[in-house]
């Protein structure tokens, strides 16, 4: 499903060049739950951003579902992110002026779903993540764990082929964090491909496979 060949990412400023990823080769199968771990600055999030089409690598190939993503235009990349990928960010990333259900509806509306359908799908997804009683609440009225579950609902509502999660439990207490990971487990059991960046071993153990990055390279696999 995901093939990464010889991936390099270098950030250039006026005076400095920083190589963050140095020749990553990786394959992820459909339905796999992959964890990416490493120390701070190892390149974990950077790797995820490249695979998730949020950034362009300096060189190398990223093939998602047999599509070479480097050949895609900006519009095609946006479309691919909308239709086939889902994102869960560390700080929930909910739109503050939209309620829980409206946050989940947004990508569905962009895909062309009618307002009624989008609302129905979003409400069902919120119920699935245990927030049936918080559908009309604004993000400011939700706890951290609840906000993250809304974020997961938004990422999963359109049934993405791959779910990306960047440190999804970093800002949560242990109870909330566990509930989030359990949600991921549930989705994974139903065949969802998940790539999760984490620095917490207790959550990483839920992954099927873990790769360890150090200094921009994969140094270990478990």
């Amino acid at each position: 499903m995901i093939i990464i060949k010889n991936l390099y990412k270098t950030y250039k400023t006026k005076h400095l060049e920083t190589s963050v990823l140095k020749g990553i080769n990786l394959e992820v199968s459909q339905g796999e739950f992959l964890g990416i771990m490493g120390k701070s600055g190892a390149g974990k999030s950077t790797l995820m951003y490249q695979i998730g089409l949020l950034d362009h690598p300096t060189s190398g190939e990223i093939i998602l579902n047999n599509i070479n993503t480097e050949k895609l235009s900006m519009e095609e990349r946006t479309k691919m992110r909308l239709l086939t990928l889902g994102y869960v960010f560390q700080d929930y990333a909910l739109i503050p002026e939209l309620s829980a259900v409206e946050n989940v509806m947004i990508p569905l509306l962009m895909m062309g779903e009618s307002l009624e359908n989008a609302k129905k799908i979003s409400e069902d997804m919120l119920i699935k993540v245990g927030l049936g009683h918080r559908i009309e609440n604004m993000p400011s009225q939700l706890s951290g764990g609840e906000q993250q579950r809304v974020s997961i609902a938004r990422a999963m509502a359109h049934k993405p082929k791959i779910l990306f999660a960047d440190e999804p439990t970093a800002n949560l207490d242990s109870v909330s964090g566990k509930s989030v990971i359990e949600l991921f487990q549930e989705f994974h059991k139903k065949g969802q491909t998940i790539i999760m960046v984490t620095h917490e071993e207790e959550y990483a153990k839920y992954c099927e496979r873990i790769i360890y990055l150090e200094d921009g390279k994969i140094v270990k696999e478990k």
Partner: protein
Amino acid sequence: MKKGKSITNKWTNILRVGWFLAKHQIKNSNKSTTFLIVFIMMLTFLNLVVISGVLVGLIEGANIANKEQYTGDVFISTLSGKTDIDHTNEIESTLRKIDGISNISIRYAKGGKIEANYKTRRDFSELQDIASTQIVGISPEEEDKLSGLSKYINEGSFLNREESGYILIGKNLLHRYSEAFGDVFASLEGVYPGDEVKITVGENTKTFIVKGIISSKVDQVSLRAFITKEDFFRLVDKPNLNANEISIKLSTNGTMTADILKDNLIKSNFSLDAKIQTATEAIPEFLNQIRLAFELLGNVIGLIGILVASITIFIVIFINAVTRKKYIGIMKGIGIKERAIEVSYVFQSIFYASLGGLLGLLITYVLLVPFFNAYPLNFPFSDGILVVPTNGTILKFCLLLFVTLIAGYIPARRIVKKNTLDSILGR
């Protein structure tokens, strides 16, 4: 066909999502800020419409007064090079038979002099108290029905057809009313109703008693003196009964218009005997020029207001987009098209402008126009009204919308097109 449908669907989605985002942003934004922005838009619209409307209204007020008190809807006057209107009787009898005409006033006019205070003038080396003017002979009833002349008597009373030897004098012929004009023309000292004045036309001189003083802002009324037409014929040497002016007022509920009447009179060859004009055509050219200049001035002032309003919108949208850069990045990240996000800001700009503009329209037509009609601005040469033609006003409303649309789009585009990841990470 498929490609066309797909483009329509794409834009439908963009507009839908843009509207969805805009609606919720406006709903959840700070109410005071929203109110302030809408208030600025309303003031901008009022500035655009009312300033030029009042300036043009000064002239329009004068034009309306000119029509109501002097020309009527159609004005027949002497051809250039002639001394009066040929075949006046024929023209009059034709006019009196036409449906759609409510009133006619036939005026006989000749240049003359008014001398006042001659009885009290002891020192003959002093200048005589004389003013030159047009002496106009009228039928008091017909003139009053056409122009409402009796309403403008502010001292004394109106003429009576049964009476002879009485005169109405326009206020600007009197020094106490025309001091502001300085020495531009001679005026009479201390003339009041009941005083005797000598009227000289050609070789003929007669005394008249001042019946009343007319106060009007129309020069053709306030710089003239009026006597009955019978008195006029006794005063002047007039070999024929041809008039010098015929003012025609049309019925308000008829289908006859000034242009139609004028065309009919021309087709009857009366244009060989007289100059036939509609009220609009009879407006002096200099007034038209002033009107154009005022319109331009008003529009320039209005455009400056629009510029200020568009800068306000630009700043509001820019600050909004900059402070929400992260969320814009996240929306792009999860697949929301840049266009949809930009459109949401455009919708917000249009919301502010259209609500402000609509409030401005309401204030203009429900409040200001009736107010100025009831209480016109008191200027020396006119009663200033507020002129807001519908087409022009709608055009200005659309201009405000368009300018704010651009002012909202530009900053939104600047922020939205920034790198997605940089926006998400706050780089």
